[in-house]
C-alpha cells in the first residue's frame, strides 16, 4: 500500500518535472538565441542556483528545527529562555551581505555592458508602438513594415523605441527623438493614444519600455536564422494581450533579398481580376484615410500617405496581422474586414459596413501584396 502510494507520488513528480522542462514553450527567456538575451540569462542562472542553495539551507534548517524541537507528550520542562547571541547576529548580517556583494559585481558590469552601443557595425530599426500593433521602420533601407520584423543574423540591431498615437508623428524620419509631432504634421500623425508599451522578444533581448516622449533604445541580435515571437509587456489598454509581433532572423543574403522586396512598389493586380476590383475599392473607399500602399495613387493622382494604420505595401508577405493576433490568410482577413472591433477589442479601425462583395474583393487584393 505504502509502496504503491510512493510509486504514484514518484511518477507524479516525474511527470511534473517532465512537463516543466518540456521544450514546448516558444517564447521563453530560458532559451536565449542571441548574445544580448544570453547576457541576462547567464546572470540569472548562477543567481538562481545561489538562491536555490540558500532556499535548501534555510528551509532545511526550518524543517530540522521544527522536527527536532517539536513538543513531545509528557514534557513539561520549560526550555531555557535564550534571548539571543550577538556573534550569530553579526554573522548572519555579514554573510548575506557578502553573498549579495558577490552578486552585485557582475550585475553592475552587465547593466553598463547592455547599455553601451557597440563600436562596430549595427543596424538601426525604429520600432513604433501603436495601440495595439507594432510598426518597424528601417531608416537606412527606407522600409516601413508592421507586425513582422526582419533582421540579419550576426550583427547587433540597435532599436529606437517610440510610442505613437494621436498628436505624434509616424514614419521613417520621425522617431529620432520620439517627440510629439509639429502641428503641420510632416510626416502624418498616428491614431489612437500614445501610451506606454514594452518591447519584448525574450529569446533575443530583455525588455525595454516604450514611453511617450522618450526615445529608448535596445540592442538585440540573433545567432541563427529563425522565427521568434514577442509581445507588448506593459499594460496598454483594451487589447494589450493582442499586441504581438514576430521577429524573423535571416542570413545576411536572405535579409538583403527581403530588403529589396520590401523596397519595391506594390505589384498591381491583373486587369479585370477580383483583386483589381479590390484595389479600386481600396483607393476609392475609406481605407486610404489611414493606410498607404507604395506605388498606388489616390483618385487625385497623389501617392497614398500612411496616416495611423499599418503600411500595407507588402501586407501579404507578413505571416500575421492585426498585432499578430491572427495568421495572414483569406478567412481571417475577411473576418477582420467585416468588423475589426468585434475581432479585436477597441480596434481603432472601425466597422465600415462593407458588403460581402467588397470584403471578397479587398481580401483578394490585399493577398496579392506580397
Amino acid at each position: 500500500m505504502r509502496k504503491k502510494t510512493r510509486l504514484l507520488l514518484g511518477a507524479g513528480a516525474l511527470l511534473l518535472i517532465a512537463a516543466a522542462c518540456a521544450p514546448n514553450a516558444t517564447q521563453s527567456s530560458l532559451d536565449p538565441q542571441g548574445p544580448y538575451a544570453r547576457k541576462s540569462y547567464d546572470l540569472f542562472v548562477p543567481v538562481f542556483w545561489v538562491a536555490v542553495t540558500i532556499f535548501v539551507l534555510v528551509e532545511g534548517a526550518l524543517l530540522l528545527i521544527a522536527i527536532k524541537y517539536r513538543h513531545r507528550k509528557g514534557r513539561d520542562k520549560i526550555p531555557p529562555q535564550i534571548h539571543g547571541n550577538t556573534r550569530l547576529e553579526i554573522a548572519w548580517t555579514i554573510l548575506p551581505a557578502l553573498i549579495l556583494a558577490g552578486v552585485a559585481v557582475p550585475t553592475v558590469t552587465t547593466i553598463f555592458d547592455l547599455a553601451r552601443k557597440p563600436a562596430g557595425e549595427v543596424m538601426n530599426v525604429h520600432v513604433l508602438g501603436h495601440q495595439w500593433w507594432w510598426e518597424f521602420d528601417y531608416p537606412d533601407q527606407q522600409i516601413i513594415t508592421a507586425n513582422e520584423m526582419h533582421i540579419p543574423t550576426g550583427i547587433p540591431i540597435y532599436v529606437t523605441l517610440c510610442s505613437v498615437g494621436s498628436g505624434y508623428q509616424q514614419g521613417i524620419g520621425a522617431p529620432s527623438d520620439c517627440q510629439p509631432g509639429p502641428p503641420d504634421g510632416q510626416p502624418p500623425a498616428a491614431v489612437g493614444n500614445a501610451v506606454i508599451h514594452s518591447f519584448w522578444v525574450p529569446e533575443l533581448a530583455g525588455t525595454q519600455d516604450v514611453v511617450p516622449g522618450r526615445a529608448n533604445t535596445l540592442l538585440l541580435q540573433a545567432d541563427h536564422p529563425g522565427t521568434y515571437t514577442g509581445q507588448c509587456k506593459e499594460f496598454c489598454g483594451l487589447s494589450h494581450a493582442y499586441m504581438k509581433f514576430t521577429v524573423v532572423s535571416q542570413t545576411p543574403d536572405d535579409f538583403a533579398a527581403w530588403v529589396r522586396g520590401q523596397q519595391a512598389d506594390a505589384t498591381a493586380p491583373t486587369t479585370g481580376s477580383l483583386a483589381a476590383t479590390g484595389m479600386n475599392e481600396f483607393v476609392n473607399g475609406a481605407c486610404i484615410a489611414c493606410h498607404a500602399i507604395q506605388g498606388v495613387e489616390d483618385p487625385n493622382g497623389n501617392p497614398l500617405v500612411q496616416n495611423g494604420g499599418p503600411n500595407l505595401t507588402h501586407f501579404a508577405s507578413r505571416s500575421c496581422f492585426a498585432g499578430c493576433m491572427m495568421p495572414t490568410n483569406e478567412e481571417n482577413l475577411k473576418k477582420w474586414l467585416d468588423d475589426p472591433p468585434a475581432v479585436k477589442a477597441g480596434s481603432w479601425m472601425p466597422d465600415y459596413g462593407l458588403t460581402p462583395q467588397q470584403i471578397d474583393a479587398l481580401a483578394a487584393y490585399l493577398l496579392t501584396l506580397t
Partner: protein
Amino acid sequence: MASVSVRAGGGGGRGLLARPTATDGFWSWFTTVDHKKIGILYGITSFAFFIVGGSEALLIRLQLARPDQNILKPSVYNEIFTMHGITMVFLVVMPLSAAFINYLVPLMIGARDVAFPRLNAFSYWVFLAGGLFIYSSWFLGGAPNGGWFGYAPNSVVDPSRGMTFYAIGLIITGIASTVSAVNLAVTILNMRAPGMTLFRMPVFVWMSLVVQLLLAFSLPIITVGLVELLFDRRFGTHFFDPAAGGDPVLWQHLFWLFGHPEVYILVLPAMGIVSEILPVFSRKPLFGYQFVVFSGIAIGFIGFGVWAHHMFAVGLGPVANTAFGISTMIIGVPTGVKIFNWLGTMWKGDIRFTTPMLFAVGFVAMFVIGGLSGVTHAVVPADYQQTDTYYIVAHFHYVLFGGAIFGLFGGMYYWWPKVFGRMLNEKVGKLHFWMMLIGFNLTFGPMHILGLQGMPRRIQSYPASLGLDFWNLVSSIGAFTIALSVLIFIVNAVSSFRKPKGMEADPWDARTLEWSTSSPPPEYNFEEVPVVHSLDELWRRKYAETEGGRVVPVVAGGSGTQEHLVESPRHGGGHGIHLPGPSYFPVLASIGFPVLGYGIIFSWPLAVAGVVVLLTGLYGWALEPSAE
C-alpha cells in the same frame, strides 16, 4: 438604543446632537469609539472585501485556465484584474492589518484606548466610505481598468469613468490611513503604561509604529499623484502628457515612491504577528529582539530608497538602474536577519504546532521563497526579462499572500479567543492551513515557470502556441483549492460562535499584556493600568528562573492556575474609569467624502452638499458635549 435628540445648549454643553450613550446593540457599532470594536469592524469589513477580491482572482484564473479562452472579454478582464489588485492591497491587507493594530496595540502597551478615539472611528468610516465608493463604480459606468498601478497616460486617456473613481477612491482611503497613522503613532509613543519603555514593547507594536510612520510619509506622495491624475482626467491638465510638456514617468516615480514602502506597510504587521506567535508556541523569548526591531526599522528606511526597481525597463539609464539594483539587494540583508532570528526563536524550543504556529511557520517558509525571488529581480539584467511577467506575479504573491495573508490568518487563530472569548476549532484550522499551503503553492509556484517561459502579466488570454497551458491549468486548480480552504475557515469562524463564551484570559500560556486581561477584554481593557517591569511582562509574572537556569512557574501548581495574575473585570466592574463616550460625528463626517467624490464626477451641487456634510460633521464633532 441610542436616542437622537437635538439639544439647543446647556446641560452638557453646546452641541449639535446629544452624545449617544449605548455601548452595546446594533446601533452602538455606528457610534462606538472603542478601539476593540473598531478593530472588529475593520476585521469584518476587510474580510468581506477579501471574499470579493478572492472571487475576482478566481475569475482571472478561470479565464486563464485554458489558452484562447474568452469567458471574460478584454474590457471586463481589465476591470477584474485592476479591482483584484486595488481590493487586495487597499481594502484587504491594509485594513486587516489595521484591525490587528487597532485591537491589539492599546492592549499590548497597557492603555485603555488610542490617543484620539473619535478620530479612530472616523478613520474606519472613511476607509469604508472609500471602499464602497470605489466598488460603486461597477454600477456607475465601469470599474477602474488601468491596473492598480494606474500608469499614465493609459489611465488618463481611458474613456470610461473607472480611473476617476480610482483616483478619488484612493484619495479617500488615503485620508483614512493618514489619520489613523497619526493617531496610532501618537498612541504608541504617548500612551504606554508605566514601565513600558520602547524596548519593552512587543515586536508587533514596534512593527505597527514603523508602519504608521511609513504611511504618514508615503501616502502624501501618492496623494499628489492621484490629485494630478484626477486633474488630468477631470479638468484637462497635462501633468502626464508629453505633448503638453508633461511626463508619464512622473506618475511612476510618485506611484512607486509610495508603492514600495506600501509593500512593507503590507508585510511588516504580519512580521510583527509572526514575531508574537513564534515565541509563545516555542515557549522561548524572541531570539535577538533588538535585532528584529532594528531590522524592521531598517527595512522601513531603506524601503524608501528602492522604488525605481519597479522601473528598471523604463529607461532611467544604467546609473539609476545600478543604484536601485544595489539598494534592493541591501534591503535583503535586514529581511534575512529577521528570518534567521525567527529560526533562532524556534531553535531549542518546545514547539507546539497549534494552528497559529503552523501559519507562522508557513509564513517564514513562504516568505523565504518570496525574498529569494526578490533578490533575483535586483539582478537588473535578469529583471529585464522578468519584469511584467508572471514571475513577478509569483514573487509578490509569495510575499503578500504567503507572507502577509498567512501571517494575518495566524494572527486570527491566535487572538480569536482573546477577541471573541471562544477558540477556533484546531482540527479544522489545521485542515485550513494545509489546504491553503498546498493550494497557494500550486497557484503561485508554477507562475515562476510561466513568467520565465514568456507569459506577460495582465493579458486576457494566451495562444496555445506559446506552450503555457499545463502550468496555467495547475495554477487555476490551485486557486480553487485556496478558495475551498477559505470556505473551511469561514465555517470554522461561524461555528466558533455556537460554543459558549468562557475563554480563560491566557489560553496559550502567552507572554504579552493583552493576555493578562479577560477574554474578551472589558471595555476599559484593564481594571488597573499595569506596571511593566520587562519585555514579555506577562511571562515574567508567571515564570522565574532558578539559580541553575531552570525556568519554573512562579505560582505553585504550574501554569494552569494563574487566575490571580489576571486583571479580572468581575471584581470592580470598572466603575469610575473614565472612557471616551460614543459619537455620531465620525460616521456623519465620513459620509461627506464619497458625496464630494460623486459630486466631482457627476454634479457640482452634489460636491457642495458633500462639503457641507463633512463640515457639519466636523463642526458638531468639535463642539460635542461630553457624555456626563
